[in-house]
């Protein structure tokens, strides 16, 4: 070894080790970046590109963005799709509806998820893992199957109606499926774990003696909750809410299966443009517009989170 060094020759392994020390960090960081570039940024750019073209009966069904005319590249940008989104009230309504449904679902999820997360965080050691397990358990079944199960529960001849008719509380079946109510049930049920888990992790980290200190200084239990527990669990509330809100805005399967024909959501509109109308440019611009709508809350969330982390240091 030492003689090798003196002669300035290195074994292959030593060379590799030195190279890793120098460039290892770049490599480790680079792999996920490369992954994101390939499977996120490139598809995004393709969609962005399509959104600026015009629909055509061709293969692919849109005009090319870059054209090779007279030994020069001509770029034809078409903003018409975006203008069309604004002019046709269908899209605006769909966006607003999606945001409304997602927002209400998020609030309901929070109201149900918070007490559950709190209960789990304050449970005894072994009980806690059992409860957490129960929260995660539904993920072991396909999402689609679980949504179909709700059809069986909410349907005209479904479980709830059958039971209520049998007890005689109602004589006519309730219309629950194909309503907005069913969409709320579906979204809240599906996304509840995404609310509970981040809430649990913040509540579990919280020092119980903080609440005791508040009680000791004269707070009634609900005041201690409002003044101490709630503000300190804000990062969890934010994380959970965004994890529910963002996918709920673009949700397609739940409104399609549980919602009625009147439940207009942007996910469904997008689907129709792509597969029914085969208007890829419009569909792409719908997707891009939705992304812009959602990027703002994500950036805001990250901003809050960095501030929180700085505060804890």
């Amino acid at each position: 070894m030492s003689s090798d060094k003196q002669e300035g020759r290195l074994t292959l392994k030593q060379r590799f080790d030195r190279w890793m020390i120098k460039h290892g960090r770049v490599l480790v960081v680079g792999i996920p970046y490369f992954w994101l570039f390939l499977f996120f940024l490139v598809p995004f750019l393709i969609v962005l590109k399509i959104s600026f073209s015009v629909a055509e009966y061709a293969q692919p069904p849109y005009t090319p963005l870059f054209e090779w005319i007279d030994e020069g590249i001509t770029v034809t940008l078409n903003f018409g799709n975006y203008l069309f989104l604004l002019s046709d009230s269908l899209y605006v309504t769909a966006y607003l509806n999606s945001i409304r449904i997602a927002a209400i679902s998020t609030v309901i999820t929070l109201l149900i998820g918070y007490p559950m997360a709190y209960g789990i965080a304050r449970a005894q050691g072994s009980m806690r893992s059992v409860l957490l397990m129960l929260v995660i358990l539904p993920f072991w079944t396909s999402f689609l199957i679980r949504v179909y199960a709700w059809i069986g529960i909410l349907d005209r001849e479904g479980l709830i109606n059958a039971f209520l008719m049998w007890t005689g509380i109602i004589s006519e079946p309730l219309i629950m499926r194909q309503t907005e109510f069913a969409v709320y049930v579906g979204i809240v049920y599906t996304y509840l774990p995404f609310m509970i888990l981040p809430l649990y992790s913040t509540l579990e980290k919280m020092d119980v003696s903080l609440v005791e200190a508040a009680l000791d200084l004269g707070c009634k239990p609900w005041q201690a909750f409002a003044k101490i527990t709630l503000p300190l669990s804000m990062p969890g509330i934010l994380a959970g809410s965004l994890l529910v809100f963002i996918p709920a805005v673009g949700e397609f399967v739940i409104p399609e299966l549980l919602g009625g024909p009147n439940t207009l959501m942007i996910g469904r509109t997008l689907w129709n443009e792509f597969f029914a109308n085969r208007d890829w440019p419009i569909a792409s611009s719908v997707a891009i517009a939705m992304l812009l709508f959602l990027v703002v809350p994500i950036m805001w969330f990250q901003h809050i989170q960095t501030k929180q982390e700085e505060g804890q240091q």
Partner: protein
Amino acid sequence: MLVSEAVLERVHEDVHKTQPWNNPDAVPYIRFENVTKKFGDFYAVDDVSLDIYRHELFALLGGSGCGKTTLLRMLAGFEEPTSGKIYIDGVDMAGVPAYERPTNMMFQSYALFPHMSVEQNVAFGLVQDGVSRSEIKELVAEMLGLVQMSKFAKRKPHQLSGGQRQRVALARSLIKRPKVLLLDEPLGALDKKLREQTQFELVNIQEKVGTTFVMVTHDQEEAMTMASRIAVMNEGVINQTGTPFELYEYPNSRYTANFLGQVNLIEGVLVDDDEKYAVIKSDEAGCEIYIDHAVQGHEGMTFWVALRPERLRITKEAPKETKYNCVSGKVEEIGYLGGISTYHVRLESGKRIKVTEPNSTRQIEPRYTWEDTVWVSWEAGAASVLNK
């Protein structure tokens, strides 16, 4: 902030002037009456009765799991006793929730609210009570002045050092002028130097505000420096209650003797019992021990003689009188601590005895060295005799 000699003296004067625990007419401020607390099958506190008087700085001392914290938490209202009664200022505390008790607590972790500034933390209790804004401002300023944290009023807890957090926690728990301030290991999170300094500070502040302090600690030095009285706890039971002086000089059991300071315990049998003296023969130490007072018990009973290391004399030559209170052995270990030296002497019987000696004069070389044969002797009044 080091407390001045005058203040220290005043503290001691007051403590000695008013020793309500020695006054049969004095009414206790806090009273535990046969309090038991069970967690499942485990007795955290087992039938404890204890009186604490007004203006005391009372320490509950014991190792971990001895029940001292549970006792404190029952006083604060975080735990309800399984049986027994707790009175504060004559009022039965049964069913009174923590937020209505006249107590405030300083938590071991300080439990400062991380999302509030120092000022807001200290003001919290007053805001809760609906005190007017101007009054809160005044009281908070005063309290921050008392704990010397005025400069840091706008800071958040995470921007403070451990010692500063401790002061804020103290200010926050004192601002409502509780009848009783509860301190859970108040200095546990501080390093040694800061701890010593803060001990006196706390006593000084207690003196200024006149609140009754009840503190929990596992540190015997902390308890002895600060407390007017100490209750030594073990396995949910109070072993002995008394002033630091009483506990050190007159321990009632081997547990107390061992817990407070260092001690050599020598097992022996009572062989001569008189009205004025007693003699205990110890096979363990290979000597006879003469005690200058009567011992309650009969001849043949087993006793333990407690000898503090600093009350033992170590000499190279045999003392004139070697019949009683005198053993010889070999120096096995030496600890030179500057101010004092400790010697571990292995007796002929195999028992090891610890002796400390002040280094009151400067020496050219150590007085004794390893394997030296030495004599260890003590006065008839140095020993206390324990029967448990």
